[in-house]
C-alpha cells in the first residue's frame, strides 16, 4: 500500500512538475535572430526581463527558414507552452492557419494581424513615432538636409521613412530628406559597413542628422555619424547611450513591453486587436541623460505639442502602408 502510495505520489508529483514546466510561455523570433540589436532583441529583452523578475523560465526558438514558422508554432502549442509570442509580420499567415487548431492556447503576434478568438494582435504606429523624431531632426539640422537610412526595402521600413519625412517637412517645408535603403535581402538588417557608407554619402550631400531604421545596420550609421560629428537618431530600443551627446534621440518602439506584458498575463492574455501608437506609449522619442543637452526647451515643447495632437487625434500622420505612397518623400 505504502509502496503504491509512493509510486502514485511520485507519478502525481511528476505530472505536476511536468504541467508547470509545460505551461511556460514561449517566444519565437523572426529570421535575423535573437541578437539583432533591434527588433528581435527588443522582444528578447522583454522576455528576459520577465524571467529575471519572476525567476521563471521561458521557451524560445530562432527560425532558420520559412517552412519552420508553422512548425515552430505547432511544436510549442503541442508541447503546452502558453502564451506563445511571435515577433514579426511574417508570422501572420502561418499563425492564421495554425491558431484554430489550438483553441486552448493563446497566441500573441507583434507587427501582424490575425483574426482569431485566441490571438492577440499588436501593431505599432511607427509612422507617428518617426514623425516626432523627424520634427526633432529638422529642428536640430543646420543645413536643412537630413538623412534616413532604412534596412531592407520593405513597406514597413518605408512607413518609418515616410513618417520621418513628414515630421521633417512639418517643421521646415524646404528641408531636403535623403532616403536610402541598405539593401533588398535580409542581410540588409545586419550590414553596419554599408550603413556607414550610406551615412558618409548622405553627409557629403549635406545631411547633418541621420535616422537609422535598419536593425543591426544602424550601429554603423550611429558610429559614423558620431565619428563625423553629425547627429543620429536610433530606433526600436533607446540607443541614446551608444554615443552620448551624439545621438539626438531614438524612435522607441516598445516591443519589449508587449512581450513582457504578454508573459506577465500568462494564459490570461486578452485576445484582440491592439494598435500601439503615441497615445498609449507604444512608440515615442527617447529623452534621457545622454541627449538632454542636445534638445532645447523649445524643441521639446514643440515636439510634445505634436505628440499630444497625434494622441488626441487632431493631427494624423500619413501611414505609408495605407496606400503604399508617401506625400513627403520618394523611395
Amino acid at each position, binding site marked *: 500500500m505504502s509502496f503504491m502510495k509512493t509510486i502514485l505520489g511520485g507519478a502525481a508529483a511528476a505530472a505536476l512538475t511536468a504541467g508547470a514546466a509545460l505551461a511556460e510561455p514561449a517566444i519565437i523570433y523572426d*529570421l535575423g*535572430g535573437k541578437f539583432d540589436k533591434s527588433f528581435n532583441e527588443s522582444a528578447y529583452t522583454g522576455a528576459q526581463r520577465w524571467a529575471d523578475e519572476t525567476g521563471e523560465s521561458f*521557451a524560445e*526558438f*530562432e527560425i*532558420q*527558414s*520559412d*517552412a*519552420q514558422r*508553422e*512548425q*515552430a508554432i*505547432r*511544436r510549442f502549442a503541442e508541447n503546452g507552452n502558453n502564451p506563445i509570442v511571435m515577433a514579426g*509580420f*511574417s508570422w*501572420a*499567415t502561418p499563425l492564421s492557419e495554425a491558431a484554430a487548431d489550438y483553441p486552448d492556447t493563446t497566441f500573441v503576434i507583434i*507587427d*501582424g*494581424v490575425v483574426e482569431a478568438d485566441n490571438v492577440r494582435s499588436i501593431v505599432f504606429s511607427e509612422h507617428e513615432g518617426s514623425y516626432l523624431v523627424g520634427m526633432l531632426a529638422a529642428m536640430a539640422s543646420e543645413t536643412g538636409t537630413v538623412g534616413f537610412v532604412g534596412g*531592407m*526595402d*520593405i*513597406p*514597413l521600413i518605408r512607413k518609418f521613412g515616410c513618417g520621418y519625412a513628414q515630421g521633417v517637412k512639418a517643421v521646415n517645408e524646404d528641408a531636403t530628406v535623403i532616403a536610402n535603403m541598405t539593401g*533588398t*535581402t*535580409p542581410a540588409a538588417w545586419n550590414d553596419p559597413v554599408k550603413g556607414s557608407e550610406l551615412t558618409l554619402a548622405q553627409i557629403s550631400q549635406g545631411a547633418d542628422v541621420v535616422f537609422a531604421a535598419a536593425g543591426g545596420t544602424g550601429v554603423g550609421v550611429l558610429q559614423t555619424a558620431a565619428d563625423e560629428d553629425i547627429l543620429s537618431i536610433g530606433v526600436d530600443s533607446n540607443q541614446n547611450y551608444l554615443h552620448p551627446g551624439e545621438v539626438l534621440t531614438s524612435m522607441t518602439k516598445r516591443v519589449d513591453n508587449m512581450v513582457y506584458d504578454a508573459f506577465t498575463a500568462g494564459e490570461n492574455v486578452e485576445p484582440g486587436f491592439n494598435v500601439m501608437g503615441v497615445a498609449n506609449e507604444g512608440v515615442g522619442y527617447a529623452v534621457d541623460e545622454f541627449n538632454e543637452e542636445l534638445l532645447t526647451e523649445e524643441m521639446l515643447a514643440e515636439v510634445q505639442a505634436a505628440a499630444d495632437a497625434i494622441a488626441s487625434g487632431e493631427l494624423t500622420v500619413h501611414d505609408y*502602408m495605407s496606400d503604399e505612397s508617401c506625400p513627403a518623400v520618394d523611395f
Partner: protein
Amino acid sequence: MDKMPPWADAVLVPLFSLILAAIISAIVILLIGEDPWEAVKLMVDGAFGNTRNIGYTLYYATNFIFTGLAVAVAFHARMFNIGGEGQALLGGLGGAYAALYVPWPHWSLAILGGAVASAAFGAAWAAIPAYLQAKRGSHIVITTIMFNFIAAALLNYFLVGPLKAPGMEPATETFPAATHLPSFETMFDPLWKAIAGPEADVIFQRSPANITFFLALLACVAVWLLIWRTRIGYQIRAFGWSQPAARYAGYSATKLIMTAMLISGGLSGLMAVNQAMGDAERLVLNAVEGAGFIGIAVALMGRNHPVGVLLAAILFGALYQGGAELAFWTSIPREMIVVIQGLVILFTGALDNMVRMPLERLFVAGGYGKRPKAPKSPIKPAE
C-alpha cells in the same frame, strides 16, 4: 594503377569525412557545455523519429536535390554555377505567375505548368551568365554570384510592387486552391488508414513534404539519363574533361556551355515548385533560404552523381530538420547548427583530399589498387 576501387571512393571517403565532422562537432558541443550524445539523439530523432519529422526532412531534401543536381549538371561541363540561389528565386517568380494567372483546373496540370514556368525562369536567369561566359569569357563564378543579388533585388521589386498581396507582408496572394499540391499527408494517410485501420495515427501530419519529392526523384533519373546516356551528355562530359579535345572533336563550346547552364538553371528553378507551390502556397521573400548554396555542398558530397546527390540531399535535409529540433529543446543556439553544417561541408567538400589520400595509400598498400581497373559501372561517379 594507384586508385581505390570506385565503391571506396563513393562510400568510404564521404563516410570518413562525416565521422571527422561529427567528432569536431561533438567537441564544439562539449565546449559550450552541452552533452553531444544527447544532441545526436535529438537530431536523429528530430530528423527521422516519426513520419512528420521525416516529412520535414524530405521536404528540405527535395529542395537540396534540385539545387544539388543543378550544380552537378553544370559541373560536368566544368562550369561552377553558384547562382542556384538566384535561379531558384526567379523560378519562384515564374511559378508564382503561372499559379496566379493561369486558371488551372487541377493540381496535376498545375504542377506541370508550374514546373515548366519555374524551370524556364530559372534557365533564363542562368542564360545570361552562360552567354557571357561562352562569348565573352566573363568568369561564370563571378557572374552567377552577382546575379544572385540582382535576382534578390528583382524579386523584392515584384513582391513589394506588382505581385504584392494587400497587407504588411512582401508576399504574393495565396495561390488558388486548384494549384495546391497534394502533401504526403493527403497522399499516404488514406493508404495508411486502409492498412492499419481508421483509428491509426495520422501519418506525415502537417509536414510540408509533398508530391514534388517524386518530381525530384524523376529529375535524378532524368539527369542520369542525360549525362550518361545521351549524346549531348557525352559531349558535356567530354567538354568538362578537356575543352581543347572537345573543340578538336568539333563540339561547339558555346552550345555546350549554354546547354549545361540552361539545364542547371532550370533544375534550380524547379526548387520553387516544392517551396512555393508545395508548401507555402504563395511566394514569399527569401523563399530559397540558402538552398542554392547548400546545393553546392550536396553536389560536392554526392560526387556530381544523381544517386550521390540524392543521398547527400537527404543528409542535409536531416541536418536541417534535426538541427531545428535541437534548437527547440536545448539551449544549443541556432548558430551551432550552422557550425555543424559548415563542418560537414568543410570536410566533405573542401578537405576531401585529406581523407582520400590516406585512404588511397591504404588501399594501394593493401594491394587492392593494383588490380586492373574494373569496367565502368553506371553507378561510378563521373569524376
